[in-house]
């Protein structure tokens, strides 16, 4: 019984000390600036202007957008992306054409046009900025993709 109590006390002390230590190292997104001071905002990242297609890192990865898409509107009336990437326009625009998987409804029925659930391109496809990773990452693509 005594042994049990001792164990619990030790455990509690450890947890208590640990969380206290964690609280000291945690800083909010605005940094260690006092609440009545303005924190300095990091410089706005610039979107990569225009590059060759970017290789995928894993098989299911939605291809990244290798160009700026500022002011490209996607709404019910029109989809700016599709003015180049649609099947009717990709040849002239010399763009990657939209995958035929995007013509399937959620019930796997193939439709005559892009499925509504795939219409909003930027839900999965994103442009890139020249930003360094916030945390260290040693992920390597599989050899089937990287060829190494």
């Amino acid at each position, binding site marked *: 019984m005594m042994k049990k109590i001792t164990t619990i006390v030790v455990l509690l002390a450890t947890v208590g000390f640990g969380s206290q230590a964690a609280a000291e190292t945690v800083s909010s997104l605005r940094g260690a600036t006092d609440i009545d001071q303005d924190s300095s905002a990091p410089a706005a990242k610039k979107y990569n202007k225009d590059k060759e297609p970017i290789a995928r890192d894993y098989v299911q990865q939605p291809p990244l957008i290798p160009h700026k898409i500022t*002011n490209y509107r996607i709404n*019910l009336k029109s989809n700016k992306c599709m003015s180049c990437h649609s099947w*009717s326009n990709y040849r002239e625009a010399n763009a990657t054409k939209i995958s035929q998987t995007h013509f399937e409804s959620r019930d796997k029925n193939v439709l005559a046009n892009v499925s509504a659930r795939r219409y909003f391109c930027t839900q999965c496809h994103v442009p890139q900025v020249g930003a360094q990773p916030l945390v260290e990452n040693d992920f390597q693509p599989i050899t089937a993709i990287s060829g190494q």
Partner: protein
Amino acid sequence: MSNKNTKECNDMILCRIWQGLKKPSVRYSLGTILIVGFISGIIFWGGFNTAMEMTNNEEFCISCHEMEDNVFQEYKETIHYSNRTGVRATCPDCHVPKEWQHKVVRKIQASNELLHKALGTINTREKFEGKRLELAKHVWEAMEKTDSRECRNCHNFDHMDFTEQGRRAVKAHSEGLDAGKTCIDCHKGIAHELPDMHDVDPGSSIGDI
């Protein structure tokens, strides 16, 4: 002869004015007539142009709520309103020709816009959205006809440095130049929202779901 004409003109006021204009002046010297004519010419011409320029600025354009609430709000989000160099193209820079003869033609056409302002053709957001495709097509057609003349007030194929352009722009511009394309063929909806494009480019709109 003159007496005969005057007699005939007794009842017709326009004819009498014409007779008066035809007769040489007996009271004023040629110099006075020339100087007065010259000065009033300047005043009339200047006044006409000043009045026309007063209708040729952004403030005048958005004095109608149809313009301010719809197209102006959309334009404020685009590069022609705000950009890194601080050069701004306002409404008349793109929608009113710079050359005088084309400008006057456009200003006369604008009387139709006044008529529809009075009729309230697009006085609600819903009515405007309903007409957007038709209105956009008018602008596209006009731009195609004039080889995008108003774009070329600032942008010119000959002045472009393709080496400074992005990969996609170089290709599109060099091919466009060869194919004799004009700006509006590709650059639709750059300063305002596009209309429902389903009939124009079926691939780029989802249409009826």
